[in-house]
C-alpha cells in the first residue's frame, strides 16, 4: 500500500510540476512573441540605419551596392570581379528566363486586341510566367471558375483554345504559390548577399587591401560554409518535402476548402472563420465532439503507455528471477509480438474480432459459451446494448463502445509490452550489485529491495521513454485505423448535423479522425476543419514534448 502512496505522490508531484511549467511557459511564450516582434522591428530599423550610414560615410562604395541593387552582379563587375559578377548575374538571369519561358507575354498584344477586356483584366493570370502567376495565384486563390464570362468568352473546364480560358484550380494555385514563395525567399537572400558583397569589396579596395581571386573566393566559401554545404542536400529535402507541406496544411486551416468545393467549379477563399468557429463560436458540435475525442485520445495514450510499461516491467522481473531457467528462450518467445510489424498484427487482430463471424466468435460458439461471455461482458459494463442475440459485435454495435475500446487497449498491450520488457531487462543489468548486497546486510526483504532499489532506478532510467511512448500513442494512427477502422459508429441520432458524414467513430483518436475527415469522407471531406484540428493536435504534442525536452539537459549542451 505504501508503494501506491508513493506512486500517487510521485504522479502528483510530476503533474504539479507540469502545470507549473505550463504556467511558466505561458508567461514566457507571450514574452517570447513580444520579443520576436520587437526583434523584427529593431532588425528592420537597424538595417535601414546601416544603409543610411553606409550611404553617408562611404557614398562611393554605396553606389557599387546600389548597382547590384538594380542588377545582380553589376557592382561586382565594377569591382572587376568578373567571376563573381557572372555568377550573380547568371542566377538572376535564370530566374528571369524561367519566368519568361513559362509565360505567354509575347502572345499578349495579339490576343488582347482579339479578346479585349472590358472591365476586369487579370494580366498575370492570363499571361504571367511561373513566378508572377504564382504570386498572383497565392494571394487571390483564383478569380474565375467554370461558366464565368470573361473578355467576351465563357470560362471552361477543359479543351480551351488559350490557356487563360481555363477555369482556375485554387488548390493548385495555392500549392504553386508556396513553391514560388520559397524560391523567392532564396532569390531575395541571394540578392541581399550580392548587394552586401559589392559594397564590402569596394570598401576593401578603397582601403588598399588585396581583393581575393576567384580561386580564393571559392575556397573561402567552401571552408567557411562547409557545415552549411554538407547540410544543404538534406536541408533542401526537408524544406521541400516536410516544411513546405507543413506550411501548406497550416494555411489550409485558414481557407474555405471542404468537399463542397469542386475544384474548377468553385474557388477557395482565404478565411479565418473555420478556425475561430472551432475555438470560440459557430458550431458548438465542432468543439464538443473534439473534446469527446480528445478525452478518449488522452485516456488511450496514457493507459496504453502505462499498461505496456507495467506488463513489460513484470515480465522483465520474472524472466530475471532466479527461478527461471532458459531465460533466453523465454525472452525470445515473448518478444515475438514486437518483432511482427505492427500493421500486420493489427490487421490480423481485426480479422480475429472483426465481422460477426470472426475467429473469436467462432471459438466462443464452438465452446458454446457465447451467451455466458456476453452476460459477463455486460455485467462488467463493456457491453451496453440491452438486447443482443447471436454473435458478439466487437467493433460494430454503437452501444459496445467500451468493449471496442477495451480490445484496442488489450491489442496494444499485446503488441507493446515486449519492447519495455527488453528495455527494462537492459536497465536491470545496469543496477550495481553492491546496492543489493548492502540491502542484504541491513536485512532488507525482497519487496523492500524492489521498492527502494529496483523501482526507482528503472523509473529514472526509463522516464523519458514513457513520455515518448505517450506522444507516440497520442498519434498512433494505425492502432485504431487498421484494427477497428474507428468503429463502432455513434448512434445516428447523436450526431449533430454539422458533423454528418465526418463524425468520428467511438474508438477514433484525434489523428485517425482527422485522416478520415480529410481523405475518406467522400462528399463530406472537410480539409479545412481537418487542418484546424491537426494544428491543435500539433500544439498539444508540442507542449508535452517541449516539457520533456526542457528536462533533458544534454539536448542543450554545446557539442565540443
Amino acid at each position, binding site marked *: 500500500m505504501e508503494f501506491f502512496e508513493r506512486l500517487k505522490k510521485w504522479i502528483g508531484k510530476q503533474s504539479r510540476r507540469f502545470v507549473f511549467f505550463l504556467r511558466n511557459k505561458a508567461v514566457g511564450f507571450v514574452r517570447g512573441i513580444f520579443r520576436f516582434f520587437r526583434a523584427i522591428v529593431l532588425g528592420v530599423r537597424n538595417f535601414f540605419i546601416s544603409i543610411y550610414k553606409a550611404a553617408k560615410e562611404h557614398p562611393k562604395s554605396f553606389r557599387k551596392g546600389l548597382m547590384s541593387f538594380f542588377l545582380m552582379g553589376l557592382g561586382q563587375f565594377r569591382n572587376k570581379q568578373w567571376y563573381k559578377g557572372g555568377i550573380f548575374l547568371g542566377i538572376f538571369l535564370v530566374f528571369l528566363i524561367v519566368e519568361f519561358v513559362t509565360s505567354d507575354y509575347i502572345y499578349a498584344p495579339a490576343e488582347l486586341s482579339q479578346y479585349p477586356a472590358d472591365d476586369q483584366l487579370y494580366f498575370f493570370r492570363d499571361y504571367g510566367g511561373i513566378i508572377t502567376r504564382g504570386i498572383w495565384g497565392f494571394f487571390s486563390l483564383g478569380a474565375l471558375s467554370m461558366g464565368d464570362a470573361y473578355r467576351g468568352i465563357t470560362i471552361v473546364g477543359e479543351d480551351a483554345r488559350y490557356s487563360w480560358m481555363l477555369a482556375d484550380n485554387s*488548390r*493548385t494555385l*495555392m*500549392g*504553386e504559390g*508556396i*513553391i514560388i514563395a520559397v524560391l523567392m525567399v532564396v532569390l531575395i537572400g541571394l540578392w541581399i548577399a550580392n548587394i552586401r558583397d559589392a559594397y564590402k569589396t569596394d570598401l576593401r579596395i578603397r582601403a588598399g587591401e588585396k581583393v581575393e581571386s576567384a580561386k580564393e573566393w571559392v575556397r573561402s566559401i567552401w*571552408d567557411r560554409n*562547409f*557545415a552549411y554545404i554538407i*547540410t544543404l542536400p538534406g*536541408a533542401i*529535402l*526537408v524544406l521541400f*518535402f*516536410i*516544411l513546405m*507541406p*507543413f506550411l*501548406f*496544411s497550416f494555411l489550409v486551416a485558414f481557407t474555405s476548402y471542404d468537399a463542397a468545393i469542386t475544384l474548377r467549379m468553385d474557388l477557395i477563399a482565404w478565411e479565418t472563420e473555420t478556425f475561430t468557429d472551432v475555438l470560440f463560436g459557430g458550431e458548438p458540435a465542432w468543439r464538443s465532439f473534439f473534446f469527446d475525442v480528445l478525452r478518449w485520445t488522452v485516456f488511450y495514450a496514457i493507459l496504453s503507455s502505462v499498461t505496456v510499461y507495467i506488463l513489460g516491467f513484470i*515480465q522483465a522481473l*520474472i*524472466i530475471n528471477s532466479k*527461478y527461471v531457467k532458459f531465460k533466453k528462450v*523465454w525472452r525470445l518467445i*515473448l*518478444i*515475438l*509480438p514486437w518483432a*511482427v510489424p505492427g*500493421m*500486420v498484427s493489427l*490487421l*490480423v487482430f*481485426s*480479422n480475429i474480432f472483426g*465481422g460477426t463471424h*470472426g*475467429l473469436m*466468435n*467462432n471459438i466462443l460458439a464452438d465452446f458454446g459459451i457465447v451467451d455466458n461471455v456476453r452476460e459477463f461482458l455486460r455485467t462488467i459494463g463493456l457491453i451496453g446494448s440491452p438486447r443482443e442475440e447471436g454473435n458478439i459485435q466487437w467493433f460494430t454495435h454503437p452501444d459496445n463502445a467500451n468493449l471496442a475500446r477495451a480490445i484496442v487497449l488489450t491489442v496494444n498491450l*499485446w503488441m507493446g509490452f515486449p*519492447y519495455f520488457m527488453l*528495455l527494462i531487462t*537492459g536497465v536491470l543489468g545496469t543496477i550495481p550489485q553492491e546496492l543489493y548486497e548492502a540491502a542484504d546486510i541491513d536485512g532488507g526483504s525482497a519487496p523492500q529491495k524492489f521498492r527502494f532499489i529496483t523501482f526507482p532506478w528503472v523509473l529514472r532510467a526509463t522516464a523519458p*521513454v514513457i513520455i*515518448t511512448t505517450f*506522444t507516440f500513442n497520442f*498519434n498512433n*494512427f494505425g492502432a485504431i485505423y*487498421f484494427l477497428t477502422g474507428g468503429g463502432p459508429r455513434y448512434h445516428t441520432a447523436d450526431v449533430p448535423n454539422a458533423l454528418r458524414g465526418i463524425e468520428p467513430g467511438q474508438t477514433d483518436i484525434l489523428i485517425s479522425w*482527422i485522416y478520415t475527415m*480529410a481523405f475518406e469522407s467522400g462528399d463530406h471531406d472537410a480539409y479545412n476543419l481537418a487542418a484546424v484540428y*491537426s494544428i491543435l493536435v500539433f500544439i498539444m504534442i508540442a507542449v508535452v*514534448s517541449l516539457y520533456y525536452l526542457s528536462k*533533458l539537459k*544534454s*539536448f542543450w549542451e554545446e*557539442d565540443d
Partner: protein
Amino acid sequence: MKMLKFKKGLAGTLIHIWLIISVIICLVPILWMLSAAFSDVPHIGRVPIIPNITELSLTNFEEIFTYRSRSGQMFPDYIRSFLVTLAVATISTTLVVIFSSLVGFAVTRFRFRAKKPALLLMMGLQMFPGFMGMIALFIIFRVFGWLNNPFFLALIYVAGAIPFNTFIVRGFMRNVPKSLDEAAAIDGATNLQILVKIIVPLAAPIMGFIAVNAFMGPWMDYILPSILMPNNETVAMWLFRMNAPDTQPHEPMWFMAGALFVTVPIMIVQIYMQKYVTYGLTAGAEKG
C-alpha cells in the same frame, strides 16, 4: 527449512505457470496467421488456431504469386508490389545513410549560427501529424509528374528520416573523441577527408542501425503510398487492400499468406536488432 523449500517451489511453479500463459497468449495470433496462410478453408473465421499439419495447403501462396488484376501485366500484383517496395526501400536506405551522416557530422563538429534554430525546427517538425501535409505533397507530385514514381516516394522517406536520425547520429558522434579529427587536421586532412576516413568508419554501427530502419520503413507504411502511388501499389497497400471489405478482391486468406511472406524476414531482422533497442529512444537523451 522444509517450509522454505516448499515456498520456493511454489513460487517457481507459479512463475512458470504465468510464463506459459503469457507465451501462449503471445503465440496464438502468430500461430493463427501461420495456420491461415497454409490453409484452404474458405472462410477465415473457420481457420483452426493450431496449424493442421495433415492438411497443409499452398493454395494461398499459389494464388498470390499468380493473381494478376489486369491481364497482360508482367508481374502478378503481389510480386509487383514487392518489387516496387524493394525499389523504394533500397533508394531511401542509400540516401538516408549519406544525408544523415552529413547532417550529423555538421551538427556535431561545427559551430554555426543556424544550428540551434535548425535543431529546434527539426524537433518541431517531428511532432506534426505527417499526413496533413499529404494534400500538399499530392499537389507537388502532380505538378511535377512524380505520382507513382518510387524514387520520389523514397525522397519523402529520406526527408522524414533526417530530423530523427540527426539526433541519433549526433548522440553517437558526440562520443567520438574530437582529438581524432584534430590530429588529422594537423596532418593536413581536409574536412571531407576527416568525414570519410575517420568519422564514417567509427560511426559504422549507428549507420547500420539507421540503414536497417530506413530499409524496413517502407514495407509497412500505408498512408503515404496510398495517396502518392495510386497506380503503383506497395506491399502495405496490397495488404490493406486484401483486408478492405469494400474493394475487390477481398481475400483475408491471401493477406495472411502475403503478410507471412514479408513478416518472416522482418521478424528475423527485428530479433537480431533487439540489442539496439535503446538507440531509438535515446534521440538526444544520452548522457541523461
